[in-house]
């Protein structure tokens, strides 16, 4: 048997849209095979065809050299395929064991299964306690439950859909250990991702899709991250480099900000201090859920801050709302796109009006100048390469990357003196990420101050010259990235104190 699974000329179209065009590939047994591509490249469609939840229009598949044409995921599972979805399907009020057994056909809860669960969890380093209630587990642990559930069926091919998008860096490396062990024991893994670094780390083979077509089969370890990215997006990436950094006066400072969270499971903030200067990019790194959301609310002005704590160009802005802050040339891009930074069921031009400082001339005594709005929307669309049919498209119809470019662009065309942006490239494809990073650098070069809150350490390292780390509502002192910053930073990330 040369291939575990072989695809021959698979085609699938929805109306005039060709989601998969003539895709031929082979997945070797006991290998980790990556399916790499941007959002909308056709990865999901292809996987659904393999897993039987969609049927191809033409083309054939072979499973262990035999014809394979599943009509439902049930048939696929019978053959020995299993899939871990991006969104888990676990009952929070049930225990791990109950959840796992519910997913199996026709078995009841008995000690044999608990033993088996424990066996798998030991064998593959999937650290979970079978008796624990799922609701109490972290996201990473939930994913491990899903993996064990798949392993109970003793699959020959395990499909993982964007498995790391919800994990912390530590959880990611644990997952990789598990995946490697699985492959060593003969389980083939199909790994779907758009994260290039990961694919380079653990995959033996990679298939790159773009626009529904197969672009290349290659060994990802033989190509640089950049080469892979360029194959994936089909164009050259711009070289990101901060040149002529000119740091000026203080623009914005947070002085000893402490605030109890008003939410039930919120994080309290303790004594946060930070300064951003003209022309500089300051980053706040840290794993999600350590107070970033609460801090962002206060920075945007969605919640009021105590007196004397938020100082922008010498002015106390703690009591101003977001609109009043924008008048002073302070702009924001929140993390969440739909429902926060943009309204899902409103058109792009209407969404422009969320951020409408007086100088933009979009409104005059509250009367909307639609001509001006249209002009600025067009400018955002062209300057920031937002892929959309027109300014009249609903925000929800744009892909994540395009909406993100729109949201960043909407703030950037106002030439902010200070831009505060949370997770600027979260869930965004490589091309858009590159574009957004480039425009942030350009803004800083023009002398604006930028504060980036990001979980993505690579991003923070590429862009910022000073980085803080946030853990459990506390902010570390600034780490200068020029002199050996990375080392200090990783110490802070794992919870240790900086030595100086």
């Amino acid at each position, binding site marked *: 048997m040369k291939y575990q699974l072989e695809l021959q000329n698979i085609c699938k179209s929805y109306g005039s849209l060709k989601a998969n065009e003539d895709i031929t590939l082979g997945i070797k047994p006991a290998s980790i095979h990556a399916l790499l591509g941007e959002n909308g490249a056709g990865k999901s469609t292809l996987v659904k065809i393999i897993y039987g939840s969609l049927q191809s229009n033409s083309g054939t598949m072979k499973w262990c050299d035999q014809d394979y044409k599943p009509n439902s995921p049930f048939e696929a599972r019978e053959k020995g395929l299993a899939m871990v979805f991006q969104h888990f399907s676990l009952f929070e009020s049930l225990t791990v064991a109950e959840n796992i057994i519910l997913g199996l056909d026709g078995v009841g809860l008995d000690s044999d299964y608990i033993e088996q669960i424990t066996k798998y969890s030991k064998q593959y380093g999937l650290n979970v306690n079978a008796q624990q209630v799922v609701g109490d587990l972290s996201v990473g642990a939930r994913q491990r439950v899903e993996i064990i559930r798949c392993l109970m069926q003793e699959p020959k091919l395990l499909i993982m859909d964007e498995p790391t998008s919800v994990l912390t860096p530590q959880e990611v490396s644990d997952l990789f250990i598990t995946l490697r062990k699985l492959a060593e024991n003969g389980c083939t893994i199909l790994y779907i991702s758009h994260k290039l670094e990961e694919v380079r780390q653990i995959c033996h083979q990679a298939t790159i899709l773009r626009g529904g077509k197969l672009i290349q089969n290659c060994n990802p370890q033989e190509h640089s991250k950049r080469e892979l990215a360029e194959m994936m997006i089909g164009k050259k990436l711009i070289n990101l480099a901060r040149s002529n950094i000119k740091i000026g006066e203080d623009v914005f400072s947070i002085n000893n900000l402490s605030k109890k969270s008003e939410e039930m499971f919120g994080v309290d903030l303790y004594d946060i201090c930070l300064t951003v200067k003209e022309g500089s990019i300051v980053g706040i790194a840290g794993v999600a859920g350590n107070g970033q959301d609460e801090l962002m609310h206060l920075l945007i002005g*969605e919640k009021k801050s105590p007196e004397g704590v938020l100082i922008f160009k010498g002015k106390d802005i703690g009591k101003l709302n977001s609109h009043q802050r924008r008048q002073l040339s302070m702009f924001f891009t929140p993390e969440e796109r*739909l429902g926060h930074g943009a*309204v899902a069921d409103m058109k792009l031009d209407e969404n422009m009006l*969320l951020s409408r400082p007086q100088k933009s001339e979009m409104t005059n005594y*509250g*009367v*909307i100048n639609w001509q001006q709005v249209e002009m600025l929307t067009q400018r955002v669309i062209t300057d920031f390469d937002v892929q959309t049919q027109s300014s009249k498209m609903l925000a929800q119809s744009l892909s994540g990357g395009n909406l993100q470019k729109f949201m960043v662009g909407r703030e950037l065309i106002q030439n902010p003196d200070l831009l505060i942006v949370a997770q600027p490239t979260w869930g965004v494809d490589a091309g858009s990420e590159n574009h957004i990073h480039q425009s942030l650098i350009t803004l800083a070069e023009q002398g604006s101050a930028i504060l980036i809150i990001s979980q993505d350490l690579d991003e923070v390292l590429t862009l910022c010259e000073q980085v803080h780390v946030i853990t459990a509502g506390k902010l570390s002192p600034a780490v200068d990235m020029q002199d050996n910053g990375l080392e200090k930073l990783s110490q802070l990330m794992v919870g240790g104190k900086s030595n100086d």
Partner: protein
Amino acid sequence: MINIEQRTDSSAKMVILAPILALTLTAISTMIIFLWASLDVMNAFYVFYIEPLTGKYNLSELLVKAAPLMMIALGLSIGFRAGVWNIGAEGQYIIGAISGGAVGLYYYNVEATWLIPLMAFAAVLGGMGYAGIAAFLRTRFQVNEILVTLMLTYVAILFLSAMVFGPLRNPDGFNFPESRIFHDSATLPIIWQGTRAHIGFIIALLFAGVTWFITKKHMFGMQIKISGSAPRAARFAGFNENKTIWYALLISGGLAGLAGLFEAAGPVGQLVPHLPVGYGFTAIIVAFLARLHPIGIVFTSLLIALTYMGGENAQITLQLPSSITSVFQGMLLFYFLACNVLIEHKVAFSFNWSK
């Protein structure tokens, strides 16, 4: 297999077609009811749909009934867009009639052009104040405004009774529970000689224009819309959530109050216990039939007024029970909501013989 699939974009064609389809289905269903009641279908159809559109009396009465519906529905549409559910316009309508009417009775027999504006002002304040109770409870204590406004309606009905049995009762009225009949200066000008059609209809049309301007061209309309569909985005845009709730309730309450006064100082001519006839509730249907669009409300208020007229005619000519009007309005709303699904969704037929 019949599947209902989400459209990628709302269908412009269906926005126009949905109400027409709903009307047709309602007409067919009423015909079935007529058949069932063994009536002459063509005649019943004429009585119900066509007769209200003939003659000076019928047409003018159409305007009389459309005016309060339009005014209330315009106010409600603003609140509904913001996701603020004022269900008790009927109560604000009553309080508006009482407060405006009381001013008229206080200046009884004073001949002055300022009296009607003053009464209108009092009515708006009354309606606003009454809706303001719900706004206060919602913003301060997170009390659901649906329950508060709805329950306050019953309080208002009893308050009206208390008033016309007590302080506002006509001293020369042989103890009948009604106020004095408003004198000429406290009565709305008639716009069509020889009928009851009053200036309230013109004013309602003006409000429709203003509401249209606000929703299309003014930031306040955007504030309402954004607050309704994405509260967090509204905060991001710098809008205060509590203020939006206050505005929504004050505007809808004020307009309902004004409509109440116009009814009392217009066709009814005095304060009586049976002043509330359900316009405040029916206006909810009017607003939704128009998909909360201000110009649409002009048409749907006329359409619903037509069902009132048709229902009355049916009672008199065909001896049908008075609930026929409600059956009718309910059916219209039901079909309309069903047809509205087609705007955002499409029906796909797929035949999969392999299963």
